[in-house]
């Protein structure tokens, strides 16, 4: 069914009780051309673009829980493409462009809000690093600019820009096309689009083994039986190492908790995104009025989907330092996701030691912004058994060749 003002009106007459399900819930078949493991945004985008761009529709997406219940539904939804190195800039910018047309492409409102993302500099070192970054980004044709303290104050009056503060604000970079989107809507819209093109989306189906022989993949064991397939794409974020072990190799990935929290809802007061790498916090305000607050990872490795209180405490201290006005707000909810961190803070998208088994992981703290772009290039990689030019550098082999893509500056605290 096409969503429109007319379908909305029609359904109003039946009190919105007869909307059809947005996707089917079929039982798994015994064989598929391609199996995607992981029903987060990246897995769903991969299935969607396999069908849309490559006409490969005999595809199943297997999700052990519910769609988007992993990091996709737990993230703070910041979208931007201001990455330092050419490889990353092109990949993230491709994703941002896709985001700009995604609601229309999917006929599903993902509530993209290009409200602008500010990254603050608090000392001379920060400021020089920031100028270098902005210049590199502009050379790649991506919008980015530097604001001085007066311009920052004009844009975000509630920010503490006093020169006598402990971490004075000396400048900021601004990407105006950056912003936020509704995370659930991204997953649901992609699921609906993939389903409409024939992809089977199967929830509550955990992959427990990867069968391969003669160095090539044959199928996957699941909690709902064995499924034969020619190709497997694994997109399980924090569980990448667990799936790699099933296939018999190791990854340069560590899984860490990343926490976030939201405040009680308040009237609109904060209309853009502000991030600070130096004081470890970033904040935006959701359409519901809640402040959405994030920070860096918990230092120890974990699969528990919860973190420790000291990180939250530090993050709140940083928030109050930047925005004294928020000091009496109460926090409503707090949660954690398990993020897959690579040594160079860049993802791995491509082939593995097992033929026809592909991995897409290592997005760590910052993969939501890449969702459609990641699916686009991963679908290409699976369809052609060769990477798309945009992910050609993001191989597993880079850890052997040494051609790392160090994005710690772009991805450490800012997501």
């Amino acid at each position: 069914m096409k969503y429109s003002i007319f379908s909305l009106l029609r359904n109003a007459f039946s009190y919105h009780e007869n909307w059809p399900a947005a996707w089917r819930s079929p039982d798994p078949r015994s064989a598929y051309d391609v199996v995607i493991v992981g029903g987060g945004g990246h897995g769903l985008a991969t299935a969607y673009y396999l069908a849309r761009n490559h006409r490969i529709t005999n595809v199943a997406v297997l999700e052990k829980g519910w769609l988007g219940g992993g990091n996709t539904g737990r993230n703070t939804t910041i979208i931007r493409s201001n990455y330092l190195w050419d490889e990353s800039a092109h990949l993230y910018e491709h994703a941002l462009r896709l985001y700009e047309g995604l609601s229309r492409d999917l006929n599903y409102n993902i509530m993209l809000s290009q409200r602008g993302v500010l990254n603050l500099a608090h000392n001379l070192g920060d400021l020089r690093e920031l100028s270098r970054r902005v210049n590199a980004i502009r050379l790649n044709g991506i919008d980015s600019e530097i604001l001085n303290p007066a311009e920052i104050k004009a844009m975000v009056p509630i920010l503490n820009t006093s020169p006598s503060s402990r971490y004075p604000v000396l400048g900021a970079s601004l990407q105006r096309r950056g912003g936020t989107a509704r995370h659930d809507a991204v997953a649901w819209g992609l699921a609906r689009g993939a389903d409409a093109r024939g992809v089977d989306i199967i929830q509550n189906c955990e992959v427990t083994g990867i069968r391969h022989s003669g160095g090539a993949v044959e199928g996957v064991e699941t909690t709902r039986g064995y499924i034969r397939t020619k190709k497997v794409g694994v997109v399980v974020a924090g569980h990448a190492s667990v799936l790699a072990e099933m296939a018999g190799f190791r990854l340069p990935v560590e899984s860490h908790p990343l926490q976030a929290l939201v405040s009680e809802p308040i009237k609109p007061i904060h209309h853009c995104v502000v991030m600070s790498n130096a004081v470890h916090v970033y904040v935006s305000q959701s359409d519901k009025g809640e402040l959405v607050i994030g920070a860096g990872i918990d230092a120890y490795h974990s699969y528990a989907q919860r973190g420790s209180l000291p990180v939250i405490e530090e993050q709140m201290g940083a928030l109050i330092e930047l925005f004294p006005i928020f000091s009496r707000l109460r926090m409503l909810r707090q949660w954690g996701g398990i993020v897959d961190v690579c040594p160079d803070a860049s993802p791995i998208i491509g082939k593995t030691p097992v033929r026809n088994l592909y991995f897409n992981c290592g997005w760590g703290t910052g993969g939501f912004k890449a969702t459609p772009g990641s699916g686009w290039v991963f679908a290409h990689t699976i369809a052609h058994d060769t990477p798309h030019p945009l992910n050609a550098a993001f191989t597993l082999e880079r850890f052997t060749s040494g051609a790392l893509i160090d994005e710690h500056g772009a991805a450490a605290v800012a997501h």
Partner: protein
Amino acid sequence: MLLIHCPWCGPRNEDEFSYGGEAHIVRPAAPEAESDAQWADYLFMRTNRKGLNLERWVHTHGCGRWFNVARDTVTHRIEAVYGMGEAPPVQSRGGG
């Protein structure tokens, strides 16, 4: 908040410590003889255990000493604390 038993100072809060990653990764004895793949394995590849993990911690804001910990990465329960260079008193187990 984890409660970690420093072998020298006793039980202290997690924020007195720093995490040192996977334990028992042995530096190559003859670095010049290692292949690129062996170097990649040593430098970057990790077991990233889901289950009982063997890991290093340092009591940064205490005695400053390093030690090993066997901790479950799903429940966060600490099963053993043992010295650097000692063999683990429990076996690592689980996926990843």
